[in-house]
């Protein structure tokens, strides 16, 4: 019903609506009065006014004048923060979609993105998130409601994840929401998948090295050739290698996704070897290398996805490894240790399934010794500085982009409500606190819980191959248990199983070629069909199937 009436309204207004929305939102003038203002760039103003006009902060201060044409928002009891950054996400990207049933190798070929690169999928640094983003406000609703206005976003797949962009979490078109593109190249210590080179961590390193050396040579060659092409063999046009030029020239950073101490060491070693401007993404153990990070002047996009214990005690289970117990206890203390050592860092969700946990965990860093100011900085100005947009964003200053998050209560306290969020000066009001926490996946939340229990025969679409398997799901309210089995991986119990209004999610540790890998599965059930996505270290793999009678 609701959807239908909305649809009719849309039809009725037609094209005109776009323009009226434009007129209404872009030229709005707002004055938030009597609010506590955390400017971040300067001292907090206990009672003051922020004026927003044409998408920018027009003035801020205890005595800032309220313009006559402003819509006045009484900020009594509210705190205005610079809009919060999530410094590493996949926001704005389409959710991984189940692929159509492939018929032999040909269909699999067709699902590969079109590219004339000399390098296989996953080894193409020229892939830009800008081309993968989609416009529209609705997709970011959950994140705005949580208090975010800005994010760094990049593709999920590949060894090279491609070039990232800094985006505002509102905008009808991609060109409107992108603030800076490209920001950096992103790299993950993983394999190309499908048995192709690099098929191991060893190959990942050698492939990276060879590409950087080839890029260096191609750049030199192109320069020499441009100066005098006569009598010289023509250098090739190679988009993949050319995308690496700014990296080797130090004009574009490279974000290495690295959480463990040894992954970070490997990233820092590579950065040193090729004089790269490196940033660490993840950095759960970065504190162990704080002096070296400081010395190499490497910033960290610090994951707030703290390790959690999820399984319950079983009499047959081995006691947990002491290192694991220490890891959980130490990780929330990492931010304070980085701050103390003078390492630059910005907070990011690190794949948290509930974006609200970002602020809960940011509060935990302050309970573990990080000064509150530093924590706020790590999601505002410090993020803007690391992402190179601090001349526009990250603090409440006259002339900066009007990205603001207005909160009743303290952002790091448990009892808080995000009341208003401004993105590019556009106001997004939040009427009441949502009953169910939004997820990073976005979308509307309805209280009903889907019914997903049952036994399913599924087909997992590994590129070029269909892997049959079964899912046995037992649902108890919102909690899901059961097993996932395939011929390749055997049978594994599922864990963290959850059922939401429109689907389900769980994770499992499966045996894959002798290694235990963790997979995260999301999906939904429609009638007797099931479909969804398996996120594995090898990337996202779609699956679909039917319920067994």
């Amino acid at each position: 019903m609701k959807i239908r009436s909305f649809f009719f309204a849309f039809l009725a207004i037609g094209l005109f609506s776009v323009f009226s929305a434009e007129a209404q939102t872009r030229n709005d003038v707002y004055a938030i009065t009597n609010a506590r203002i955390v400017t971040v760039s300067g001292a907090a103003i206990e009672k003051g006014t922020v004026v927003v006009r044409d998408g920018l902060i027009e003035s801020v201060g205890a005595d800032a004048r309220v313009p006559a044409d402003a819509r006045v928002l009484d900020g009594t009891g509210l705190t205005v923060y610079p809009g919060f950054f999530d410094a590493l996400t996949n926001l704005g990207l389409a959710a991984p979609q189940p692929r159509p049933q492939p018929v032999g190798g040909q269909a699999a070929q067709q699902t590969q993105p079109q590219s004339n690169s000399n390098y296989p999928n996953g080894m193409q640094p020229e892939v830009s998130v800008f081309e993968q983003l989609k416009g529209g406000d609705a997709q970011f609703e959950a994140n705005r409601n949580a208090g975010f206005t800005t994010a760094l976003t990049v593709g999920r797949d590949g060894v090279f994840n491609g070039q990232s962009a800094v985006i505002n979490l509102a905008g009808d078109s991609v060109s409107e929401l992108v603030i800076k593109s490209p920001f950096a190249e992103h790299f993950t210590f993983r394999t190309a998948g499908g048995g192709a080179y690099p098929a191991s961590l060893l190959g990942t390193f050698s492939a990276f090295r060879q590409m950087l050396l080839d890029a260096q040579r191609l750049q030199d060659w192109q320069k020499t050739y441009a100066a005098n092409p006569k009598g010289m063999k023509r250098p090739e046009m190679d988009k993949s290698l050319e995308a690496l030029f700014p990296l080797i020239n130090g004009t574009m950073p490279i974000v290495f996704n690295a959480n463990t101490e040894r992954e970070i060491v490997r990233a820092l070693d590579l950065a040193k070897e090729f004089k790269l401007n490196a940033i660490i993404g993840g950095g759960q153990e970065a504190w162990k290398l704080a002096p070296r990070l400081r010395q190499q002047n490497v910033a960290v996009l610090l994951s707030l996805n703290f390790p959690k214990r999820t399984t319950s005690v079983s009499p047959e289970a081995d006691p947990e490894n002491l290192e694991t117990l220490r890891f959980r206890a130490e990780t929330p203390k990492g931010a304070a240790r980085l701050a103390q050592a003078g390492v630059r860092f910005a907070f990011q969700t690190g794949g948290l399934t509930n974006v609200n946990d970002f602020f809960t965990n940011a509060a935990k860093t302050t309970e573990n010794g990080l000064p509150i100011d530093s924590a706020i900085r790590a999601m505002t100005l410090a993020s803007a500085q690391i992402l190179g947009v601090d001349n526009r964003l990250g603090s409440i200053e006259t002339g900066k982009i009007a990205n603001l998050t207005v909160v009743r209560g303290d952002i790091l306290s448990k009892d808080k409500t995000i009341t208003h969020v401004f993105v590019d000066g556009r106001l997004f009001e939040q009427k009441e606190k949502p009953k169910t926490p939004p997820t990073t996946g976005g979308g509307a939340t309805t209280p009903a819980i889907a019914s997903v229990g049952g036994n399913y025969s599924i087909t997992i679409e590994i590129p070029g191959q269909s892997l049959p398997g079964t899912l046995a799901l037992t649902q108890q309210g919102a909690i899901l248990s059961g097993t996932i089995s395939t011929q390749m991986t055997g049978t594994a119990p599922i864990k963290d199983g959850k059922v939401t209004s429109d689907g389900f999610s769980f994770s499992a540790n499966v045996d894959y070629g002798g290694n235990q890998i963790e997979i995260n599965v999301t999906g939904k059930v429609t009638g007797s069909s099931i479909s969804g996505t398996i996120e594995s270290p090898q990337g996202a793999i779609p699956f679909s199937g039917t319920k067994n009678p």
Partner: protein
Amino acid sequence: MRKAIVFLLIISIGLISPTFLLAQNKTEVLIRNATVLTAAKGTLENTDILIQNDKIAKIGKNLKASANAQVIDATGKFVSPGIIDCHSHSMLDAINEFSYSVTSMTTVKDALNPTDITIYRALAGGVTAGNLLHGSANAIGGQNTVVKFKWGKPVEDFPISDAPPGIKFALGENPKRTHVQVQPGQTPRYPRTRMGVMEVIRDAFVRARDYKKSWDDFRAKKTKLVPRRDLELEPLVEILEGKRLVHAHGYRSDEHLNLMLIADEFGFKIATLQHGLEAYKIAPEIARRGTAVSIFVDSWSYKFEAYDAIPYNAAILWKAGVSVSINSDSDERMRRLNLDAAKVMKYGGVPEEDSLKMITLNAAKQLGIDRRTGSIEVGKDADLVIWNAHPFSVYARPEITMIEGEIYFDRTKDIQRRADLEKERQELEKLDINKPSGTTQPRIPSERRIEERDEAEYGDGGNQ
């Protein structure tokens, strides 16, 4: 666990700890009154070893040390050189780059894991150094790294900086069975026969020779454009130039002989034949070329290639004048290499010191690190093991294992520390973050952890 000690030290010493620890490393150590198995100059009874600046400074009777020296009374105990495992895949996060048959561009140095608990277990078995090799899935595998097992130290402290570089080759079953077809429609990897393996190696060296020529021509200004640096061929050029050691996995004598003939053809020497279970059949051919062999003592028949193995292999090779070392190729057997060396005395009657050399000095020579380690001689690194009994006794166990004069394993301290670790565990388990949430089913492990499995139980993943 090492971290725990350092941590406790820091707590007790406070701010002056960094300088103190530095001084600690350089402290003189005097081992008193031991039976010293030198692995070079016989067995010395009631002998002292003085260690200064990480090195063995003096060996003799009634040695004097300065007042602040650490003195270890080793009366009734045995001191041997630190054991060197000439074939190991410990502390590696990745072993095989199985996508291609030639992966000389890879190096295991990129995948070192200095927190791998097998390092500490190796120390507890008296092992102080290892030849970390790429797996045997490829005819030409990746580059090796020779490390000392400095548990608790940052990863960059592990590789022996002046060890000559090496590389793994592999012949026979392992490289030919890796013609896996990962995806339907994909061409399976070449080669799939033993003759194909040889062709892959010869082809690689032909390419390397051409590559070397392209650079020689460029340096001689015969060509204008700088050649492309090729990370696959560079290590092979180093082999042609005699700068990189080839460690060639193989079982059958015909294949090892074939490989040596290819090396003859291209004018280089194979450094070691790894495994070489049939090496006794071609002992004179191996000896003539100055190639060494690194073997298992008495395991066989675990695959077809291993059917002709005999326990007298080491003795026959030794009598033919071949340098023999004994390796483990296993995180588990690495801890008992002393007993493997003892078996060589039993099978074929190799003298005691020559048997001991097979896990110490010979391995050091094969890896080009004998200038600094492998035997107890003045001037060498103080890489030593203090045993409660003769290391060839089944009752022997290391009490102290030291590398460059620093103690990395101390059995007494290990036992003392267990109570502290248990206390730490209990405190950590009390934290909310470490309490189970109780909302999901426990995962019951479908199989035991790798380190608990017996060798025979798991597919060798292209090793062995």
